[in-house]
């Protein structure tokens, strides 16, 4: 993938990620999150992770965001009114986030290999086959645990959404 495409999709992802936390309207936030996930899927493609890019679009941009939009419309949330802003809490939160990013920046700067470009691949790459073989041989127990987890989540959601909780 050409270099400028990487920067375009990274900027798309970051700008719409910022829009998620800036928008006051939850529907606009959710739609910005969808665009951000598409940018991330494009970055996965640039890293030759085709299977994960498809999964990202199907599961995140498809299923999860539809769930978010569905709940927002079910609860009928409007754009929230501007409340009194607690300036101590806001500046404290911004300072902590800034400190976290500074730390990440310095760790990446000291990482060996952070300045290297990616090595060349074999000309043929079949990542679905590689991931599938690993999933059903080395990671077969975690795969079954995940399956049980999804079942538990399904039952839990049904119990939680009953009218009366006892």
């Amino acid at each position, binding site marked *: 993938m050409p270099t400028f495409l990487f920067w375009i999709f990274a900027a798309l992802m970051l700008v719409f990620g910022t829009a998620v936390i800036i928008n006051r309207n939850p529907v606009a*936030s959710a739609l910005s*999150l969808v665009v951000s996930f598409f940018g991330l899927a494009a970055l996965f493609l640039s890293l030759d*992770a085709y299977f*994960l890019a498809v999964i990202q679009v199907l599961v995140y941009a498809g299923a999860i965001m539809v769930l978010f939009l569905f709940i927002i419309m079910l609860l009928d949330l409007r754009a*929230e009114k501007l409340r009194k802003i607690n300036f101590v809490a*806001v500046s404290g939160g911004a300072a902590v986030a800034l400190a976290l*990013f500074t730390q*990440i920046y310095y760790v990446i700067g000291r990482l060996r290999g952070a300045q290297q470009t990616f*090595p060349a691949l074999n000309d043929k790459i079949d990542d679905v086959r590689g991931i599938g073989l690993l999933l059903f041989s080395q990671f077969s127990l975690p795969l079954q645990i995940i399956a049980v987890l999804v079942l538990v989540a*399904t039952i839990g959601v049904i119990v939680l959404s009953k009218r009366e909780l006892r």
Partner: protein
Amino acid sequence: MVTLGDYLLVSGLLFTIGFAGVLLRRNIIIIFMALELMLNAANLSLVAFSRFRLTSGTPNYNAQVFVFFIITVAAAEVAVGLAIIVALYRARRTTHVEDINSLKF
């Protein structure tokens, strides 16, 4: 050319955006979306490392399997979390975290 550090920097920025969203926003659904942003930032750096450490000419698929598991767990987590938010909204008629303070000392 794009280096590994560029991908890690973008991933760190996305994580910071999500972290700032969790700290600064007061709407519980927006906080939940910011959590998803942080999970995705972690996924991006995992995939970048997987592409960087080649094993016999192909990416290291262990990392990609890990990302697959993270996406699955995130889907389950979103379903349960949104069900909890709906139950909370039924009981309290609000999604604003400052209105939910019965356990506050």
